[in-house]
């Protein structure tokens, strides 16, 4: 394929992905808006007013970056895993497999689709948070870089999950038993400084902790971890998951017999 044709193919995949999640917006865009509003009301307003300050900020301001990041992570992951697995299930993935679209473009298209939904939901949640607190921006480049890399990383995670999944149960196991616990324990609702030394050490192996804290640094200027290490780790994970995804595609794992 010529570079122009390759670009057209990439644009086609991304457009189809965006069309898919906007067509079913009550399933994709509305639920995180409702859930995060409840978090803002219950944890931020009702409980947060009794907690007082966290990391030098009122509790609502402290949890907003984490909640935005949580919605970006879950939405990016969910978009790719459900879209790609549905294509496998309905066999419409064959439309792509018979076409000359290179594997790298297939992967890039799905990751871009996941990022579009993750960032879209992140924007919705950010706008909703303005009804509850005043957002400041401490470091815009760090904030943007963190959210972009994180949504790309979890889109890749969703892609690998979908490639390996053989039934619908398989696409809910990782979000339920891995992603959600790691997110809740990733410093969304608390600073790990509150934990005993042992649990602080355990928390440091949770990759989501780095993403939440890097994003929080971009907004509030406070972080439990070194932001450079956080961004470096996210970047490293992106490379590793990209290599795994491309290998699975080349082997045709679950999509070619």
């Amino acid at each position, binding site marked *: 394929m010529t570079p122009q044709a390759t670009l*057209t193919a990439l644009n086609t995949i991304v457009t189809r992905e965006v069309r898919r999640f906007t067509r079913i917006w009550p399933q994709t865009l509305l639920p995180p808006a409702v859930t995060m509003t409840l978090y803002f009301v219950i944890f931020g307003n009702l409980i947060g007013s009794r907690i007082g300050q966290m990391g030098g900020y009122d509790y609502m301001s402290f949890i907003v970056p984490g909640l935005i990041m949580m919605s970006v992570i879950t939405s990016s992951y969910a978009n790719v895993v459900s879209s790609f697995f549905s294509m496998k299930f309905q*066999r419409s993935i*064959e*439309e792509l497999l*018979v076409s*000359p679209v*290179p594997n790298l473009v297939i992967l890039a298209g799905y990751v871009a689709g996941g990022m579009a939904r993750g960032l879209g939901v992140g924007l919705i949640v950010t706008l909703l948070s303005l009804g509850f607190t005043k957002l400041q921006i401490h470091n815009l480049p760090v904030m943007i870089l963190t959210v972009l890399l994180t949504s790309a990383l979890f889109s890749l995670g969703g892609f690998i999950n979908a490639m390996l999944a053989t039934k619908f149960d398989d696409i809910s196991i990782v979000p339920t038993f891995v992603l959600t616990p790691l997110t809740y324990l990733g410093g969304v609702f608390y600073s790990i400084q509150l934990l005993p030394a042992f649990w602080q050490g355990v928390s440091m192996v949770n990759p989501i902790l780095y993403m939440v804290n890097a994003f929080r640094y971009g907004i509030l200027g406070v972080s439990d971890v070194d932001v450079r290490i956080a961004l470096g780790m996210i970047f490293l994970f992106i490379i590793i998951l990209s290599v795994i995804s491309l290998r699975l595609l080349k082997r045709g794992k679950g999509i*070619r*017999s």
Partner: protein
Amino acid sequence: MTNALQLDGLVKTYGDGFEALKGIDLHVEEGDFFALLGPNGAGKSTTLGIVCSLVNKTSGRVSVFGNDIDTALSAAKMNLGVVPQEFNFNQFEKVFDIVTTQAGYYGIPLPRARESAERYLRKLGLWDKRDSPARMLSGGMKRRLMIARALVHEPRLLILDEPTAGVDIELRRSMWAFLEDMNRQGTTIILTTHYLEEAEALCRNIAIIDQGRILKHTSKRALLQQLSVETFVLDTDQVVSEAPRLEGFETRLNDEGALEVDVAKSQGMNGVFIRLEQLGIKVISMRTKANRLEELFLRLVEENAREAGSRR
């Protein structure tokens, strides 16, 4: 002239050790209307699956218009349009979107993709349904949608796996006419079908595959010439209680009481009519007992099964 499709020593062994293809050699000339026939599990879909990149081959070579799929996969795919046996589109997407999206995968910009999609949806009688979700279409419409999708990038080789399965006779005939027209305009067509009448009506060359091996690969004309004896069913003006003895011909009554006569190609039909005339029996109408290709097909497959049995 470069062959539209060339298969050399194609082998496929699945993970469980099942040998689906045991060294297939096959060529399809450019402009041909070609049928790949075989019983269920013979290896037809595996063969086409490898050509279309849906199945990984174990060994052997595949080239489409001279483009080897190991070294020039993208060029090979550009020349190929595929209509699979089972519906494989997103049932929730609109008809028009399915076709234009497929064009986009081939790098066709959206304005051209829309023009091409409109042209084929109109040709296949689906233009009025362009805004309907695919799940709302009837079975026949879904089949036509898959043909429109396969043609939207103007491939030189169109592969159809059981294109008229479950389609009523009227629609089947209109699809035949459409495919014949595509072939006349230069598109090479390869199809698999269970309707041997379809292969006999449409195709110029035929390969018969069974148990992962090609049993026959020849022109339809040459294949049909191998059929030395045909059976005709005669409807007569009077009910006969037993088959009349016609010198030189085998006769019998079938389950419905109609007269069946075996006629060798060298004999011709005149002798049958002369002898029946002498017996005072008048023939009202006549038809061949079975599809000629079907008889040959069954004979070849049975012979192959017997040989396979004796090898074991």
